[in-house]
């Protein structure tokens, strides 16, 4: 592994446990602090999957003698097994996401497949694994229902988490996510058995749909594939996706930071077409997302390329002109808004989020939480986790037009208009 004999020798010299502190090894990595000539010890880490190396020492040899020493120590069994410390973990995560991005880039070179035969083989291998995963999931679900979920409060979370990991192995990350969500329901509030049944029933629906994939209308089949976790390459969306040109009003955005990945959902509505669209953006935790094409309440003249599916929402945006100011958008009553969500469910029964534009709603107390009431007296509740104060201050009790995401737990406001001024709430 050493770049030259001199390095190998120098590495051997570093391979003494006394030189190292806070060192350790995990399945994927080695790390430690090595006291050099300076005041600060060098921070050394090795990613075994590469292998890849990083060290804070100034050496230009690669790997440096510290990394070599660490590997020698490891090979002689002198590195204790331990959990990766934060600094190692964050390096590994960063490397992983970089590798993923590189792979993605390699994968989606438009119109050029390096080895069509190999690609086809890869695809059919994956289809087999997904099918096996779905079969496993089906028999697991049938088993649970036959024997009963009553012991789930104790074992359910672990069992579902394991199952989710199995679905990741089966290359069905979408279903894995659904199973993880089901795990999150277990034992929460006294209505959890009903909610768990809802989640499991919808997973079951995915599994059943997968077994009849060939019989489904193509758009529905695409939706099912997306649920399971097949991703459509952006190049394909750009090339083959449905194209809609319009001035797109930015209804609002939701940013969800996570430990690993920040997700931003940007909701748009076509000024003439009235079409709704969702632009997703991702960034590794702590990194900046791409800038928004326009602020909420502004128009982006653009061509959208929609991903396939029975409820085509997700799209890629190709901006065609500078953004424009826009007036207060027209919206719906609470009743009309719920009806539009129901309509979305008939196309995609798994749909979890739906953008609403509520017109002339006023804030209200709803027990411990808050709600928005329309002029007819119909109200939608805000999600209990939402901070209502900006919205309240903007309204001051006056009717406002509010956009937000609706899911069955409540409404999450994104943007409010009192006069023609759009305000992120």
């Amino acid at each position, binding site marked *: 592994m050493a770049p030259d004999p001199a390095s190998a020798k120098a590495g051997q010299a570093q391979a003494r446990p006394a030189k190292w502190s806070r060192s350790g090894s995990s399945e994927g990595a080695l790390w430690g602090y090595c006291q050099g000539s300076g005041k600060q010890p060098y921070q050394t880490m090795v990613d075994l999957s590469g292998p890849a190396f990083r060290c804070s020492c100034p050496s230009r040899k690669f790997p440096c003698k510290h990394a070599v020493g660490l590997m020698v120590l490891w090979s002689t069994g002198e590195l204790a097994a331990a959990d990766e410390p934060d600094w190692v973990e964050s390096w590994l995560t960063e490397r992983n996401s970089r590798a993923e991005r590189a792979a993605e880039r390699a994968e989606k070179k438009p119109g050029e497949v390096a080895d069509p035969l190999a690609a086809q083989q890869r695809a059919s291998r994956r289809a087999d694994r997904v099918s096996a995963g779905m079969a496993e999931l089906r028999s697991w679900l049938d088993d649970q229902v*036959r024997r009963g979920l009553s012991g789930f409060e104790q074992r359910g979370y672990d069992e579902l988490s394991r199952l989710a990991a199995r679905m990741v192995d089966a290359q069905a990350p979408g279903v894995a996510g659904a199973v993880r969500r089901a795990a999150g329901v277990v034992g929460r509030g006294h209505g959890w058995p009903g909610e768990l*049944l809802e989640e499991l029933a919808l997973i079951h629906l995915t599994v059943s749909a997968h077994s009849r994939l060939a019989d489904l209308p193509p758009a529905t089949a695409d939706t099912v594939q997306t649920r399971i976790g097949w991703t459509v390459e952006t190049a394909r969306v750009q090339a083959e996706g449905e194209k809609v040109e319009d001035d797109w009003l930015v209804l609002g955005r939701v940013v969800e930071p996570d430990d690993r990945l920040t997700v931003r959902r940007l909701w748009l509505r076509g000024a003439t077409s009235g079409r709704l669209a969702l632009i997703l953006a991702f960034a590794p935790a702590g990194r900046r997302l791409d800038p928004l094409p326009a602020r909420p309440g502004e128009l982006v003249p653009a061509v959208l390329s929609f991903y396939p599916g029975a409820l085509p929402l997700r799209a890629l945006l190709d901006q065609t002109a500078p953004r424009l100011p826009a007036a207060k958008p027209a919206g719906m009553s609470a009743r009309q808004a719920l009806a539009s969500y129901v309509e979305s469910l008939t196309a995609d*029964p798994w749909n979890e989020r739906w953008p609403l534009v509520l017109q002339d709603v006023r*804030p209200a*107390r709803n027990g411990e939480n808050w*709600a928005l*009431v329309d002029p007819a007296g119909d109200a939608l509740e805000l999600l209990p986790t939402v901070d209502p104060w900006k919205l*309240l*201050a903007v309204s001051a009790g006056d009717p406002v037009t509010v956009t937000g995401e609706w899911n069955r737990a409540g409404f999450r406001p994104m943007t409010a208009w009192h006069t023609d001024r759009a*305000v992120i709430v």
Partner: protein
Amino acid sequence: MRGWDGLVSSALLGTERRPPNFEELPPPIQQQLSGEPGLLDAAALATLYKRAGRLPLRGVEPLPVAEGEDRPLPRPNAIRRLTAMLTGFQSAALGEWLRIAEAKGWGIPPEHLPALADYARGRAEYRPLVVAAAGRRAAWLAGLNPEWRFLHEAVGEDPELWTHGNSIQRRAWFRALRQRDPGAALDALGEVWPTEPASARAEFLGVLKTNLSGADEDLLEQALDDKAKDVRRVAAGLLARIDGSRYGVRMAERVSTYLVQSQGVLAVTLPERVSKAMERDGIDAQAHPGLGRRAWWLRQIVAAAPLPAPGILQLPVEGIAAEVLQAAWAEAAVREQNVEWARALLRHNAATDNRTSELLRVLPPDELPAAIEHLRARIDLSDLVGGLPVPWSASVAELVLDQLVKVGTARNWARLAGIAARAVPPEALNHPITREPTGEEDTWRSRLVETLVFRREMYEELS
């Protein structure tokens, strides 16, 4: 939904033990079930049926509307600057932004009120600004969020607030009335006086400092007999500020028994004891650290008495250290805002008991630069100007900035630069120092220039 609970209990117990009963489900679901449906097939349909059947809530009462008008909003770049300050960039200028906006009649974008209210919650000096900025939304938000109770300080003229408001509303109402109609405020206080608790008596009395006059004397004399020491202390302090008050006469008489001016000498006799009458007038009989008991009594009397002509400062003093008298006169000069005395004390380098800055504030602005030049031989420049009210007069600002231009990068000027960055008035923000190049290692200088430029742009945007 009908039949759903049956599905849940089948799922909990297991279909082996409790086979599901689909007959209970609504007919449209049953019609969709074909072949040999399993529990999960039925549950999936039922789940969608439930979700699709969701109705809006009824009977939820909207909040009342906040009464009043909204002020116009400033230009977008001014709003962007406010947003930046609320997210931590140059947030020390936040108060200034609010003050300019208030003076120019601009409103505050309401979506920033929650952040501003949270900011002012722990910083009392910002509260009046946020209350003003919140406008018609102030009391409305205060009613919704107990953490923002201070927003109740937004004053309505409704006299109900005086009799039925909470303590914040009452204080605000009373302060506003005192500003507008001092006599009416005195009457309002007289009416409730006997029934207020001691803390409220002291607090309301303190408000009389605004527009204080001889009309207030009777109530204050009465307060000198109050049971509560705090009330007596506030009353004595206020009486000493009223020209020609009986209190002043009593104090002047006392002074004339202890201080006798004859043949160009000021001869001092120290008081033997503190009489009941003296105690009633607020003279503290307790010992004072660093001063003999009797000297302390004398100093209090001189400080509370009307000032004589400042020429007395020239006389040699016998019987006590002259500094004791000087400190007492300095205290009185600040209380009376007496320009002649302030000028004389500063010129004589008199002992002022740390009141130098307060005395400087008494001087007319155009005398300040000369006074500062005179004093800086003895007193650090940043100590001198650090105590001046902000913003400084343009002449003081120019004196300080001219000085900073000359001093290079020496680190010991950092403190003065830090003070100046915030205290320079708008008309001096364009000082040549902002156009001089600053190096990267010039920490205090580049920070000063950055702040001055930031503030200059802020004034331009809000003009």
